[in-house]
């Protein structure tokens, strides 16, 4: 990631992202607790508020903070595993609960032929397994298309 093309978001833009999270997951996620940045491919990064105290202009920045997710068309957001973990606990829709076998399959990178309720078709759904939140993936007519990054599969 090139920090030169990372932009720190103002309050108004942060609120737009909060609105997208609310629309998709019915969660009131308060981004004012973070510094929020947007980068290439509409990726959203969150960082500690104190990040702005650093002399960023003088640094050869490679990345800042943690990737929350990526904004997608039609006001959707593809959350990273970490973004899902932050938002997923409170999610009231667009989440799926997996059983033990499904969890193993999902974590190995397989797609799942299941038809969850309370989820929007062609949207990114948060994947839960007991207390664990495993990430988010795409719901299609064929089931859950696995979007778990290869480096995080087991």
């Amino acid at each position, binding site marked *: 990631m090139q920090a030169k093309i990372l932009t720190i978001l103002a309050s108004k833009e942060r609120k737009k992202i909060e609105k997208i999270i609310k629309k998709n997951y019915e969660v009131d996620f308060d981004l004012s607790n973070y510094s929020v940045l947007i980068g290439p491919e509409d990726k959203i990064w969150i*960082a*500690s508020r*104190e990040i702005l105290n650093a002399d960023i202009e*003088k640094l050869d920045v490679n*990345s800042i*903070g*943690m990737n929350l997710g990526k904004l997608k068309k039609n006001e959707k957001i593809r959350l990273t595993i*970490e973004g899902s973990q932050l938002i997923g606990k409170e999610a009231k829709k667009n989440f799926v609960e997996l059983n033990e076998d499904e969890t193993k399959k999902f974590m190995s990178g397989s797609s799942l032929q299941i038809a969850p309720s309370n989820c929007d078709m062609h949207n990114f759904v948060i994947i839960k397994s007991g207390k664990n939140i495993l990430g988010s993936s795409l719901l299609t007519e064929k089931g859950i298309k696995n979007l778990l990054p290869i480096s995080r599969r087991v």
Partner: protein
Amino acid sequence: MNKNMSLELSRYKQIYGEEFEIPERENVWTVRVNILKISLYDFEQIARQKGWDLENVPWVENTFWIKTNDILSKTIEHSLGYFFSQNASSLVPALVLDPKPDEIILDLSAAPGAKTTQTAAMMKNSGVIIANDITPERLKALRGNLQRCGVINTIVTKTFGEIYFKKGLKFSKILLDAPCTGTGTMNPRILQETSESGINMLSNLQKRLIESAAKMLEKDGVLIYSTCSLEPEENEEVVNFAVEKFGLSVEKTKIRKLNFIPGLTEWKKRFDDFLSDAVRILPTEKTEGFFVCKLRY
């Protein structure tokens, strides 16, 4: 033991005394629970369910030696960022650094991120860590680990230390876990492949790095220098260079329940007497050899 390793052993007996032996490594994982993502209680519950045999590492919180046949780095819990697997002695530099939540800290040679993620957890994910490294592969690993551990207080940078000094940046706390031979791991391959010329080459690099770090240190600032090397050329000699050239002073370090010996004050030449305040962890069945020194400007 092959001929090369015998030679290495004789070198270490010369440095550390006749009683030095290469320990038989115990088949045990060391795991630091990532409290940014999971409570200690919840982790212990998971471990119990999975039949992992936990033993507290005495000198650091939230860390266990775990006996199990599971490959912990290939578990769901690892993938989800609930823990970081790192050697117990490598936890000491961040303990000595003693980071506070509101500070701005420079981690000069940060990849792959074991100490950075530990520092972030100690700072409760607030304040700022500038985590620097120079090679793209190592930066990729660093970014991956920071993401997996849910670290948000870090700016990853890619530059040579002296560049920041030239830009006038100063820090009150710097961690320099320098690239080293890794002989503290007692890995037979490393012991076989390490030559005295290789040690001296790294020693020169480490001197350049500590020079950059020393120049970026604010008045009264703290620099932690560490390596996982057993070689005095990579440790005491490097610190002695910083003491003589930049007027840094070595401060005594106390870590409760940690077994260590004082830093050396002599190896091929005489070092500053205060080097004995440095921490030398010798390899044991469960821990790698490590060197840690706290310096103040």
